[in-house]
């Protein structure tokens, strides 16, 4: 069992309300939130697929909603959520190999995650609209 001295030398956890959030911490929280949101969001995907498979009327209501400005906004946010979680996963994969953990690098990776997810979302929508 750990001795008393060992317990005393352990770092204290930060007090969250007077603590300036490091970007890596924000990205860690965002990774979990986006993951949970995507878990729930699969219901939207299932609903849309079932509507398409069911018939003209069911599809019209799903398509009408998703094709509206609110629906498109949700789809745009959904795709950003996917891509942010994806890049976060790649960041974790890099860390799994024990590299990119230095102070400068990990902050750079966190910012790259945020900027990259926004850029990639716009890029994929541009590609989709071009193919369309």
């Amino acid at each position, binding site marked *: *069992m*750990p001795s008393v001295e*060992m317990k005393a*030398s*352990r770092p204290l956890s930060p007090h969250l309300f007077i603590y300036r959030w490091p970007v890596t911490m924000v990205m860690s929280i965002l990774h*979990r939130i986006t*993951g*949970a949101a*995507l*878990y729930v969001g*699969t*219901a939207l*995907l*299932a609903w849309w*697929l*079932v509507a*398409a*498979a069911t018939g*003209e009327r069911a*599809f*019209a209501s799903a*398509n009408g909603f*998703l*094709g509206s400005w609110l*629906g*498109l906004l949700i*789809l745009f946010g959904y*795709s950003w959520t*996917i*891509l942010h979680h*994806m890049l976060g*996963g*790649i960041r974790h*994969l890099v860390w*799994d190999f024990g590299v990119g953990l230095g102070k400068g690098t990990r902050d750079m990776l966190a910012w790259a995650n945020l900027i990259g997810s926004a850029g990639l979302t716009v890029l*994929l*929508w541009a*590609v*989709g*609209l071009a*193919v*369309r």
Partner: protein
Amino acid sequence: MADMTTPLRRVRHLGAAHDGTSHFWRQRLTAAANVPLVIGFIILIVVVVGRPRSEVVAILGSPFVALFLILMIVSISIHMRIGMQVIIEDYVHGEGRKVTMLAASTFFAVAIAAVSIFAILKLAFGG
């Protein structure tokens, strides 16, 4: 930094979850599979959104797209089930509630996968 190793680091056999690192590995395997799958999926959604049903059915029901969607559904439902299990294990501490929520989460993931795959097969084979 001082060495903070405690005897707890020496996990014996397959550890407290009784399945070793299988979830760790499966989560990374499905994550790697998800990268090309979700990129293709987002482009697909942008291409089909707002189109009339006949066109959407033709695109989603085509062999390549249907197969692609089924692979994505399988991969993401495995991935999201493991991910939600980690979240539940982190925040739900009562053993009864934890097991109940884990079971409910598994049912949700399986239901989403089954319903989605059935819909895709119907689009592919039944129109």
